[in-house]
């Protein structure tokens, strides 16, 4: 069991998401940065589907109620055990009564805390991912207790290491494919999508990231159609909206670009004011 002493800005339990329920209008949800979350799980020897804690910008303070192992990956929010800084991307033993807290944000935006065996909070529609209206709880609150397995034996790969892609946190390039309505844009609009740089606006969350710079737009709305995480929509006022993991299943704005899946992970580590550039991707690697 893990007790929440302080919540931080916004922390949720997430796994790889809720699949197969989109025709009921249920979003996928799941960890925003699948790369970093899987690093944390792999290093602990967890299943890739194990639920982790997704921490946004400022971290929670947690008290562990049993001996186990943890691993923190993704953003560097200066994680500590009992006030001593711990390493990222390394399995670490915790003892009953240990306090995990976080400090300054050094890089990235979302950190992932994995525990041995994964968090065992409410599972709805085959997923632990918190989402309002689907799970009872949509985020962590003070005094919550989060269930975890009490390990009989510590299976964590204590000496496991992994080389983290440094560019994951530094690159401005977001790789994209043409979206279903890309061809409806004029040559000029198409070019400026790739030539112009963009800035992430303060409207950014698990549902979508809006971009600051508008794109001149004269496209009509489309008949409501399916969208995916990573779909870039163009609104009538020219705002570009990049849909993220908690996005709706359908939308009526033209879908001009589609992010490569690894680029959704990269974007998840960016926040208000960060610059990005779209770069054309091809299917063949």
């Amino acid at each position, binding site marked *: 069991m893990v007790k929440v002493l302080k919540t931080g800005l916004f922390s949720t339990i997430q796994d790889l998401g809720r*699949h*197969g*329920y*989109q*025709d*009921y*209008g*249920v*979003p996928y949800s799941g960890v925003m940065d699948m790369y970093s979350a899987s690093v944390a799980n792999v290093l602990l020897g967890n299943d890739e589907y194990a639920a982790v804690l997704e921490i946004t910008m400022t971290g929670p303070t947690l008290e562990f109620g049993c001996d186990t192992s943890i691993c923190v990956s993704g953003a560097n929010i200066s994680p500590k055990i009992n006030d001593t800084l711990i390493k990222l991307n390394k399995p670490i033993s915790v003892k009953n009564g240990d306090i995990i807290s976080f400090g300054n944000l050094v890089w990235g935006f979302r950190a992932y805390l994995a525990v041995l065996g994964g968090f065992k909070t409410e599972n*709805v*529609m085959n997923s632990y991912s918190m989402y309002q*209206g*689907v*799970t009872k709880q949509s985020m962590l609150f003070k005094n919550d207790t989060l269930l975890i397995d009490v390990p009989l034996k510590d299976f964590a790969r204590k000496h496991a290491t992994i080389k983290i892609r440094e560019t994951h946190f530094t690159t401005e390039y977001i790789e994209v*494919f043409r*979206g*279903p309505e890309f061809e409806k844009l004029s040559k000029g609009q198409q070019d400026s999508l790739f030539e112009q740089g963009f800035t992430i606006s303060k409207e950014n969350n698990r549902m979508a990231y809006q971009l600051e710079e508008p794109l001149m737009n004269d496209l009509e709305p*489309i*008949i*409501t*159609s*399916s969208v*995916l995480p*990573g779909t870039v929509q163009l609104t009538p006022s020219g705002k570009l909206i990049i849909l993220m993991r908690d996005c*709706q*299943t*359908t939308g009526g704005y033209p*879908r001009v670009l*589609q*992010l*490569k*899946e690894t680029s959704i992970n990269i974007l998840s580590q960016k926040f208000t004011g960060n610059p990005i550039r779209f770069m054309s991707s091809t*299917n*063949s*690697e």
Partner: protein
Amino acid sequence: MIYKLTYKPFGERSILIEWPSVIDENILSDIVIFKEKIKSNHVKNIVELRFAYNSLLIVYNDTVVLIEDAVNELDKLYHRKKSITGFTSKQWKIPVCYDDTFAIDLVEIASKKGMSKESIIKLHSKTVYTVYFIGFLPGFMYLGGLNEKLYTPRKSTPRLRILKGAVAIGGEQTGIYPSDSPGGWNIIGNSPLEFFNPKKELPCFVNAGDKIVFKPVSLKEYNDIKMLVEAGVYQLESETIDG
């Protein structure tokens, strides 16, 4: 009827199939039949099939490297003689209370249109609506068939909270909010039913392709039904229709 379909890659793992851009029941049934064909033929590596008015999204398990092969396989299947002729659907009677307690925009719509509240309720509840698909919010049905006289522009400032069950008109569409949510549609009533329940094996009782009609109920009937729904014992009226 065979339509000219367009196949587009959508990201690295999906293909979007598009029908002509009109909202049409014949297209809906063609999409549903094609979806069933793909399902029953167990096309390799497909993990998800979902559709909207005039499109079918196919999500694969892995990167689609040979997009042309995947498209050819699908298109061959589309043109193969139909093994499925139609689909069975249901018509549901959805109780709606149009009382002033809930219908906070009904007076305004009536006065703008120069119609009585009663005639708006009558027009809204005599139509048989088609459920095209579920999207936007968990359990939100996209309905076709709203009477033209009831078309009403969305509110210029959306409300921050619309009550669960609210029956509303937005532009040329009508719908029911399955949960409390912000929204810009005009509220004309409320239904006591549960349109989405994540704990049930079938989270939505209505399926795409089904029909629904709204049955006006009094405030007292509304409260009675609501009580039965909450106790899990309400028997909703429906009949089977063969497509």
